[in-house]
């Protein structure tokens, strides 16, 4: 039972985040921050798949977050609440506990489908085109939502607070943190499995030398699109969580500044480092909260931080190593399938 590392880590995190919230030891504010950290972890880890492991440059992650945010919120508010947008609730609010995670999944799938529209033309050409297109996606999303008056347009959309309250009314439990926790664990789980498999590792080969990969039987077109959809789908789920955390959203919440935040976290943590992404998401979220008194200057600090990073330490906190490379003694608790396989085969 050497590989008890992951379950232990999950258990400890559960104890730290959820139990104190449940017992009421953490104020609403602290719970809010914990949820935000979780959401940022999902966003960073998912964008790292594209910008880190695959070495592309997608600048539009916030737009897919927004797609998920709006999809999920529109569904929950429409189904479960009496709102000024949609009239009476369709379903009894007791079902919120069941409906909410389903809408998260739908939000993720919607975001993934939109990303497919973007990915197919973008990956046909090399070079800066993904950057340009994903930049454009930021604008298209904002502009599109602003033109749909039925869901609030530029004035925004709300009602998600009632959904969260409905869940709490049925069973008093820190539902938001719980679902965020679940999605965080899920995201890290599937991404880790993916990049440790031969199929997933091939995206690193694509980053290193795409033509050689293509000539070594790697279906680069398919792989890039699939990785992109996976990444944006997770961003969509993070968006759904985000919308229900802040309970009021508008198109500007998912625009270039938000995309920039996610970019900072990815490069701060280190391209292609899963543990780096987690660490930098935690650090950056807390940093941004601590800087709240700076008000608008916060928005100056973020790009400045990334510029300084690029000039002095572009590889980020972890470079492209994992925490396990820094503390090799922990490796025996966290080894990957392929490592175990090669060790086993060689021994025989």
């Amino acid at each position, binding site marked *: 039972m050497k590989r008890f590392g992951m379950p232990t880590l999950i258990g400890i995190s559960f104890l730290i985040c959820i139990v104190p919230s449940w017992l009421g030891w953490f104020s609403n504010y602290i719970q809010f921050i914990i949820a935000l950290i979780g959401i940022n972890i999902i966003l960073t880890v998912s964008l790292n798949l594209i910008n880190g492991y695959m*070495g592309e440059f997608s600048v539009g992650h916030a737009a897919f977050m927004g797609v998920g945010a709006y999809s999920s919120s529109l569904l929950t508010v429409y189904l479960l609440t009496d709102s000024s947008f949609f009239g009476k609730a369709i379903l009894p609010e007791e079902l919120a506990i069941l409906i909410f995670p389903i809408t998260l999944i739908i939000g993720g799938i919607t975001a993934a489908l939109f990303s497919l529209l973007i990915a197919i*033309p973008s990956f046909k050409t090399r070079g800066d085109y993904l950057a340009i297109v994903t930049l454009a996606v930021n*604008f*298209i999303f904002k502009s599109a939502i602003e033109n749909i008056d039925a869901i609030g347009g530029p004035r925004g959309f709300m009602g998600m607070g009632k959904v969260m309250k409905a869940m709490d009314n049925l069973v008093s439990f820190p539902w938001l943190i719980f679902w965020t926790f679940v999605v965080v664990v899920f995201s890290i789980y599937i991404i880790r499995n993916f990049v440790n498999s031969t199929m997933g590792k091939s995206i690193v080969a694509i980053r290193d030398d795409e033509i050689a990969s293509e000539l070594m039987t790697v279906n680069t077109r398919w792989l890039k699109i699939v990785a992109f959809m996976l990444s944006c789908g997770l961003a969509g789920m993070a968006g759904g969580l985000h919308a229900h955390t802040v309970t009021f959203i508008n198109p500007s919440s998912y625009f*270039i500044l938000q995309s*920039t935040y996610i970019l900072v976290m990815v490069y701060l943590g280190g391209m292609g480092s899963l543990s780096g992404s987690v660490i930098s998401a935690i650090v950056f979220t807390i940093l941004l909260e601590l800087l709240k008194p700076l008000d608008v200057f916060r928005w100056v600090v973020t*790009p400045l931080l990334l*510029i300084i990073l690029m000039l002095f330490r*572009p590889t980020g906190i972890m470079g492209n190593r994992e925490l396990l490379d820094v503390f090799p003694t922990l490796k025996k608790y966290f080894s990957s399938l392929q490592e175990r396989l090669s060790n086993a085969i060689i021994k025989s």
Partner: protein
Amino acid sequence: MTIDFFIQNFINAMQWGSFLALIAVGYTLVYGVLLLINFAHGDIFMVGAYTGYFIGTFLLNNFEIKLPFDLPGWVVIPLTIILTMIITALVGVAIERIAYRPLRNRGAHRLYLVITALMFGLLLEYGNLALLGASDRQFPTLFNKIIYNFGGITVTNIKIYVILLSFLIMGILWYIVQKTRWGMAMRAISYDRLAVPLMGISVDQIILITFVLGSSMAALAGIMYGTAFPILRFNMGMLVGWQAFIAAVVGGIGSIRGAMVGGYILGFTQIFVAAFLPSTYRDLIAFVVLLLILAIKPTGLFGVPRRTKV
């Protein structure tokens, strides 16, 4: 749908297209020599507009700090233009020196340059917001507006100035690029970066000139924009600059002719679409056009695909 309607929109489109073309050329010039999309360029345009605002307001004696005398209009206008161009060019060059050049010399991955460019744009934008506040600024009236009426068509002298001046500037730029040694060097760098210094031309110097040219043109565009649409907003770099960027990409990034033509194509598309659809669709249309062109001809209308040796 009368002839007047079309002529009116035609003139508006020419004006709007001129702004886009002037700014788009700046993107293309830098891409030509550095193979870098200078994402900060749109905000250089904003810097130009705001610098023009401050200098113009100061010279017209409408500022907190007053001059002991009043300057006549024919002094204020060229002075404003020249000073704004110089200061804006300095900002552009500063960014190149502080960030792009060290990264280039270090042989840093292109990705880091792109990120830095993007971040500088945001830095300028949010820096503006933080330092100058959220309220809009009124650009000083450097020219007295004269309105001409022909039948159902309204034309202001400003619109005419903008269009004529833009053509003049683009003509000068074309001359510089095609006929002068500097221009030849700029074109040479875009074909073969390594060979140029071997021919005795300093690449750094040419890059400097490129940034000066691009930033000055953005500054001019900023002043003209402020004169035509006097409300300045902190995010105008994003609003207008990004659309110019689209124009450059549509025309084929790296092709100066493409940037100019792309500016007018996009300008016409936006003005005529806005004539039929609500104006909130204007941005959406611009970006949809971008995606369509990229899907059909990824290198843009005049762009040349770069071949890499396998």
